[in-house]
C-alpha cells in the first residue's frame, strides 16, 4: 500500500497543476487528500475519456495535468486517448488504479494479448478488467510501471520524466488502495 501523502508530495514536486479524475475506491485516500490540501486543482469528469481531452487542453494552455482513473475507466477512454493525448503527443502522467490486480497476482497469471479469450474473461474469481489492463496499454502504445508500496513512489517521477522525453502519455499502475 502506498500512502497518499507520499504520492501527493511527489505530484507537487513535479509541478502538477491539475488532477482529472473519476473517483474510485483505490484512489479515495489520495483524492480526499488532494481536496483537503487544495494545492492542486481537482477536476471531476463524468467519463474517463473526457479526462484525456481536458488534459490535452490544459497542457496546450501551459499547465501540468495528471489523469487519475481506474482501469475500468481506462478501457472506456479508447478513442479519446488515441485521438487527443496520443495523437497530440501530450506528455501526460496517468495514474491508473488496478482493480483486480490481487486476484491476478495470486494466480501468478501473466496475461498477454494472445492469451486473452472469452474463457479467461469470464472465469469466476478473476476480474476481467485486470486481465485486459496491461494488454490494452501495450496495444495502445502506453508505457507503464507499477506502484505497489511506499518504496515505489519514485516511479511517479520516473514515469513523469519518461512522458516528457517521449512526448506521450505514460502510466503508473497503482496496484493497492492508497492509504
Amino acid at each position, binding site marked *: 500500500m502506498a500512502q497518499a501523502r507520499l504520492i501527493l508530495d511527489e505530484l507537487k514536486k513535479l509541478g502538477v497543476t491539475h488532477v482529472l479524475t473519476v473517483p474510485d475506491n483505490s484512489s479515495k485516500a489520495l483524492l480526499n487528500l488532494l481536496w483537503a490540501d487544495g494545492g492542486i486543482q481537482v477536476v471531476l469528469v463524468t467519463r474517463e475519456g473526457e479526462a484525456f481531452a481536458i488534459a490535452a487542453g490544459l497542457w496546450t494552455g501551459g499547465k501540468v495535468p495528471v489523469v487519475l482513473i481506474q482501469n475500468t475507466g481506462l478501457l472506456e477512454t479508447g478513442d479519446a486517448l488515441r485521438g*487527443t493525448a496520443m495523437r497530440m503527443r501530450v506528455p501526460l502522467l496517468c495514474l491508473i488504479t488496478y482493480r483486480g490486480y490481487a486476484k491476478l497476482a495470486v494466480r501468478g497469471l501473466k496475461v498477454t494479448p494472445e492469451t486473452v479469450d472469452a474463457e479467461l474473461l469470464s472465469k469466476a474469481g478473476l476480474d476481467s478488467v485486470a486481465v485486459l489492463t496491461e494488454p490494452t496499454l501495450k496495444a495502445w502504445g502506453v508505457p507503464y510501471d507499477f506502484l505497489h508500496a511506499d518504496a515505489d513512489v519514485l516511479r511517479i517521477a520516473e514515469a513523469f520524466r519518461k512522458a516528457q522525453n517521449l512526448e506521450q502519455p505514460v502510466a503508473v499502475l497503482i496496484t493497492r488502495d492508497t492509504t
Partner: protein
Amino acid sequence: MPRDKSFWVPGIPSSSKRSHQEVTFLTKRELLEPLARLRTDQVVITTMGIVRPWARFSNHPLDFASADSAMGHAADFALGLALAQPQRRVICLNGDGSMLMTLGTLVTIVNAGARNLILFVVQNDSYEITGNQPIPGARSVDFSGLAKSAGFRRAETFDDRQEYERTLPEILHHPGPVFVTVKVEPGDEEPLSRRPEESALYLRCSLAESARGLRRALGER
C-alpha cells in the same frame, strides 16, 4: 424577421410529420462572419463541418481545429484550455453530433467553473461530413435546454440572422460558461485532410504540431 427557409433532415422519411415542419436557419457565412469580425484575442476551437468554413474567415494564431482527432472531444479540449488560461476567453464551435457524444461534458464545464468558455453548437441536425445522416433527436433535441439544465449561466438558441448579430457582442462578453445553439443549413463539408492544399497552416500540419503551435502562441501572449 425570420426568413422563410425550409428543409427537412436527410434520412427522415418524407412521410414523417417532421419533414413538413418549416424551420428557419442561418447559413454558415451568417454564423461565422460576424463572429470573425468581433473576435479579438479569444482562442477559437473548431471541429467537423465548421473547420474549413471558419478558416475562410479567419487565419489567426489562436485558431485550432479539433479534427483528425477524436470526435466528440472538442468541447472538453476547449474546457482544458479555458482552465489553463482563465484570463482569456475560449470559444468552441462544436458540432451537434459531436455534442451528443459527450453530453456529460456540459456538467463537467459547469462544475469546473469555466467562466471564460463560450460553447457554440452548430446545429444542422446531421452528421455532415459523413453524408448528412440525421443525428439522433434531429429537429427535436434542445441543446440550449440541456445546457441550461446543466447550469450554464446563459444559454440561447438562434435561428434568425438579425437576432444573432444583434445579440452576439453581448454574448461574447457575458460571464460564462455561455452556451449558444445556432441552427444552420445542412452542408457538404468533407473531413479535414491535413494535406498541403488546406488553406491555413494549422490545417496542413499534424495535430501534434498544431497543438504545439497553439501552445507557443499562447505562451507568447
